């Protein structure tokens, strides 16, 4: 049932972000303005508060509503980015993705929208450096999609350490952004793991 | 006024910049706003050298280096040219008050 799935995803995402709130802000303090954890917790907390309303919607509409909630509540630069990600994914269809290929397609639609919204691309040390490898891993039709997604997310995150930021507040640090994980990539990786954990139990 | 200038129909005027800081941001904005109320082409020049610049362009006037004591030349062409020149000169003379 879509409703149970949506509730589980909301709970898992909210919990993941809340549990890592300080870590995310710490990463953001190194190369940003130190509020990524706080902002994400606010945004996903608002989604959790609206869980009843969101879970009653068809899956695609639920994603869009969650996305809009993030836009309005996260603040910072990540609000529009995560919001756009979910809204674009939700627009690919009302039904939850039934196959790995469908999931890959939805994620790819989200990634394209984030690239446009953030005027960015992979390699710029952002959330895209986790999301794009995850989409690629799913596209490859792996025998164990969840393990593949988790591994791609972790590798993508680790790769951001040596990248130089050219987008967002971290870009002002230039060379000094090298050697630090990107906070948006970290939160993306957390969310990928949260989603995989939920799907495993379904 | 030269014969050539008279033939072109320009009206000329001049006023001396009185503010110790010269023509800085706030008076520059006032000058531009006033110039824009006239239909005539309105131009200014500082210190007698350099080219005439469009007095209705905020960026152009902002860039004009006109220090304290510098004569600001004004010229206008069009139906209300005379009024425009007189008004701008009066504004500079009043040290941009009012």
């Amino acid at each position, binding site marked *: 049932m879509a409703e149970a799935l949506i509730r589980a995803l909301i709970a898992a995402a909210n919990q993941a972000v809340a549990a890592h709130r300080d870590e995310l802000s710490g990463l953001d303090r190194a190369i940003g303005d130190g*509020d990524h954890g706080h902002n994400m917790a*606010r945004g996903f907390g608002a989604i959790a508060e609206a869980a009843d309303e969101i879970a009653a919607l068809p899956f695609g509409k639920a994603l869009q509503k969650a996305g809009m909630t993030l836009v309005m509540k996260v*603040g910072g630069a990540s609000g*529009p980015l995560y919001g756009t990600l979910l809204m674009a994914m939700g627009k690919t269809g009302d039904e939850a993705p039934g196959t790995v290929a469908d999931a890959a397609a939805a994620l790819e639609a989200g990634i394209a929208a984030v690239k446009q919204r953030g005027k960015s691309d992979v390699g710029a040390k952002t959330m895209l450096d986790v999301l794009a490898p995850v989409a690629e891993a799913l596209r490859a039709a792996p025998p164990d999609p969840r393990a593949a997604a988790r591994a791609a997310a972790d590798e993508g995150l680790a790769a951001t350490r040596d990248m130089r930021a050219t987008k967002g*507040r971290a870009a002002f640090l230039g060379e000094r952004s090298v050697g630090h994980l990107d906070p948006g990539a970290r939160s993306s990786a957390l969310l990928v793991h949260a989603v995989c954990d939920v799907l495993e139990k379904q | 006024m030269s014969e050539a200038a008279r033939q072109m129909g320009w009206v000329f005027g001049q006023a001396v910049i009185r503010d110790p800081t010269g023509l800085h941001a706030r008076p520059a*904005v006032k000058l531009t706003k006033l110039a824009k109320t006239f239909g005539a082409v309105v131009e200014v020049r500082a210190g007698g050298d350099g080219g005439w610049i469009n007095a209705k*362009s905020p960026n152009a006037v902002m860039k004009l280096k006109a220090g304290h004591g510098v004569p600001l030349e004004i010229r206008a062409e069009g139906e209300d040219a005379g009024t425009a020149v007189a008004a701008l000169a009066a504004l500079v003379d009043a040290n941009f008050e009012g």
Partner: protein
Amino acid sequence: MSDNVSIVIVSHSRDVAKGAADMVRQMVGEEVRVAFTGGNADGGLGTDVAAIIAAIESVYTAKGVAVLVDLGGAETNSEMAIEMLGDGRGDNVVICNAPVVEGAVMAATEAAGGASLAEVRATAEDFQS
């Protein structure tokens, strides 16, 4: 009084946004409507989409609205706000690629003379210190 393009100032700091609006009002006068917003929902540094929408709506005119922003997040949130205005109003709102304070003053100066939105934006973006 004929309609003028209005100005919206969006900064991560409410103080900066308010200060810039005060400067515009004092230097340019009352004939150009100015709205400002700054800070996030908690009152800290940041920008808030709902507040930006409200600011634009408070001075919206079909003649046009020029938005001045400071850093990245302000621009992205302003873009979202403009898209969310609805009824095609977003077509009459533009974000100027100019420093927030100077751009606001130059834009308002140009707007006071009745200039079009395109002219107002060009003047703001032409600014060089």
